[in-house]
């Protein structure tokens, strides 16, 4: 017997959410969705959640199980009982307001997808037949195009938890699908917009979205690809790009990170307002004895690091 610990919420009945424990025998081979359906249909019809295709393509049944977002239809329930546990906790996806039980309001999620202008931009009229695209060019957008907009990445995104302005992994993965589409003619414009606050450089590379993505879309890798394109396109007049370039410069030069120049170069030498903002942080670091050594030394094997850069053609 397994305990399904489900976070219930129905604003018509009660203002606050509560946990309900349901004892349930998992049938062999049942997915988490199969279990929830059986519970709903045979025990408690009020239990609410979204679902449709039950084959991991429609993206309806995103929810959190044991603290992490997943598609209920894609996971064998027994696989959620590792290490001798006897309880599966189920709650709605995070970073979105809850409507009822496991149903969340995805309005903001879609709004952000909309913000990246998720459609092909073309300047010239298309040819009579199909536009040519090589299999290699197709490969560049293949992974992003598998996204099913389930919101699992958005639910568990650590940046979104502290910054609601962040576009979020799904919208940015969708953006990559156009940034690197050989048929799209808005690349420059796109990467400039995506480099603004709330965009690619606000991703903290925690890779949570890669862990949660039920498809090969894996947003963090797509975000990194947009970053590369932005730098190639010379879109470097922003903190994120400057931070990345300063990082690389420092490693290439000394084999280690120069933590004194990094914040200054990230802000930009002529960004007086930004630099002034660093002063109080610097002073507090000084008081706590956290200031890195003023003289930045190379590591012993710095030549090896430089050789790596040469090998990479940098």
């Amino acid at each position, binding site marked *: 017997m397994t305990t399904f610990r489900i976070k219930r919420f129905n604003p018509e009945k009660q203002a606050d959410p509560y946990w309900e424990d349901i004892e349930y025998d998992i049938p062999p081979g049942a997915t988490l969705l199969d279990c929830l359906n059986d519970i709903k249909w045979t025990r408690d019809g009020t239990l609410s959640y979204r679902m449709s295709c039950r084959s991991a393509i429609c993206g309806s049944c995103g929810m959190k199980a044991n603290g992490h977002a997943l598609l209920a239809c894609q996971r064998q329930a027994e696989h959620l009982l590792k290490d001798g546990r006897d309880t599966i906790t189920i709650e709605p996806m995070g970073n979105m307001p809850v409507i009822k039980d496991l149903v969340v309001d*995805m309005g903001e999620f879609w709004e952000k997808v909309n913000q990246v202008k998720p459609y092909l931009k073309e300047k010239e009229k298309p040819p009579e037949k199909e536009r040519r695209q*090589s*299999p290699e*060019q197709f490969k560049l957008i293949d992974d992003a195009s598998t996204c*099913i907009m389930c919101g699992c990445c958005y639910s568990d995104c650590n940046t979104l938890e502290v910054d609601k302005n962040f576009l979020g992994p799904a919208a940015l993965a969708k953006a990559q699908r156009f940034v690197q589409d050989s048929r799209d003619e808005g690349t420059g414009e796109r990467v400039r917009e995506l480099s603004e606050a709330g965009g690619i450089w606000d991703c903290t590379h925690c890779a949570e979205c890669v862990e949660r993505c039920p498809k090969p879309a894996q947003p963090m890798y797509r975000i990194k690809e947009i970053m590369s394109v932005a730098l190639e396109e010379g879109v470097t007049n922003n903190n994120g790009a400057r931070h990345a370039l300063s990082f690389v410069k420092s490693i290439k030069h000394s084999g280690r990170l120069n933590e004194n120049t990094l914040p200054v170069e990230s802000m930009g030498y002529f960004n007086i307002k930004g630099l002034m903002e660093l002063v109080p942080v610097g002073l507090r670091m000084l008081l706590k004895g956290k200031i890195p050594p003023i003289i930045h030394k190379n590591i012993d094997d710095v030549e090896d690091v430089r050789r790596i850069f040469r090998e990479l053609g940098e």
Partner: protein
Amino acid sequence: MIKHDVLIVGAGLAGMRAAIECCDGLNVGLLTKVYPSRSHSGAAQGGIAAALGNSEEDTWEEHMFDTVKGGDYLNDQDAVEEYVKAAPNVIYQLEHFGCVFSRTPDGRIAQRSFGGHSKPRACFSADRTGHAILHALHEQLMKRGDQVRIYNEWYLHFLIVQEDRCHGVVVSNIQTGEVEIIQAKSVVFATGGYGRVFKITTNAFAGTADGAIAAFNAGIPLEDPEFVQFHPSGLYRQGILFSEAARGEGGYLLNGKEERFMEAYAPARMELAPRDIVARAEQSEIDAGRGWKGEGCIALDLRHLGEARIMERLPQIRQLGIDFIGVDCIKEPLPIQPSAHYSMGGIPADMHGQVVMDSRNTPLQGFFAAGECACISVHGANRLGTNSLLDATVFGERAGRSAAEYARSVGFGQINEGHEKARVLKQIEEIFQRPGTENYNDIRNEMKDTMMEKCGVFRDDEKLTDCLQQVRTLQARYKKGRITDKGKIFNSELYEIIELGNMLKMAEIITAGALNRKESRGGHYRTDFPKRDDESFLHHTLIAQDGEELKLDKKPVIITKYPPKERTY
């Protein structure tokens, strides 16, 4: 009351394509009980047909002939001709919209082989073609966000028809429970199919006949409902779809003796015979005790294709096998069985998407239909794989255009808002007030079991008579069901109950059509009448409600280029 020039119900391929077509200058609403990207069109895997000739020379005539032969000559050939001729430009337009397609080495759209098609004409995006097109169309709608209002998670209850014109729909907002009237000059239904009537189905939970029954309840007969396609490769016991592309890429079907049994049924086409023939062959092997490992399934063997090809062309299928049954098709065969997949029948419409009400094709002004819910009849008695995405796109566009033209030519009619709203409120109240002595889950399961067993791949008079009887008993029990959720916010239990009511009606209609058609043709096979009978049955079925009874009528089949011949593969 909400007003739109054009209101489209259903936001899959057909619905979204219709919306794109008619948003120019008109006030358009698009209503879906899920979200556009959750529509079941996205589950289509293998491809979309068009005679592009990118990998082998091909013509629209060959595409037409394959479609007609595949449909066992029940297709309306004038519509088929328009449809296959439109195909190449439809594909190019999808490509121009930004749809992601797999490519040939020289950059053209790649094409693969598919069941019943004599040439490799399935354009594809790996094994997620429906997904790729669905998202491309959704993108185009986001681009036109200021012109199309999308109603996500709204449910269609009734169609408003007065005399010979449609005036709108009665709907409710699933998230809030509010009932609303949407008045429209043109209404387009693109509401999908009804595979959920059967126990083993590839269909999403949303495939519950809502649109077909709303039209039926408004007095429109349903056409050819007895023709339900069983897909040869649904996952054993669950029905989760494994694309025909697996066979298109060279996969084998094996019985329990590890024989490629299709040799005995369709030696010329083997695994790539049309779906009705393959599904029957599989069921025959299973029924004869030659199932894979002695069970009620067949093996889909892809091992010889090798890891590289599987990973390139069929990655999603491989993942489905791993996730759902722990089988990696690179190393082991997948257990499959025939699974209810597609409804060839539906709301009768002409090749412009105009819904017609009788055998003389009298139009119902302002009402249009496209996609799986419609029966234009390009598929006849059996649809070929990859022809449905094409159907949804071609006729979605045409229905959208017709709806826009009509909306531009007329003003709004008169609606009795209070009366229309009361119909739904009464329906919901009636469900809340039922005695509660019956269990909806039992009723649903019994319906699905009965339909699968008695109205499935193999049918006969005895089974069908029994089936009809049982479905009617279930309809009576349904009126005494028990609901636990009487709230307004996201009451999914209530909607599932209404959907079950629709499915019980649909089950009755399918069975009545099957009982009446005493021949075997395409997806409809009667063991007591195993031959096609053109003399008596080369016509479409029309079924309408007549008091308590169903009334059956005939409609002629339009035959232009290809007179019926014996159908062998």
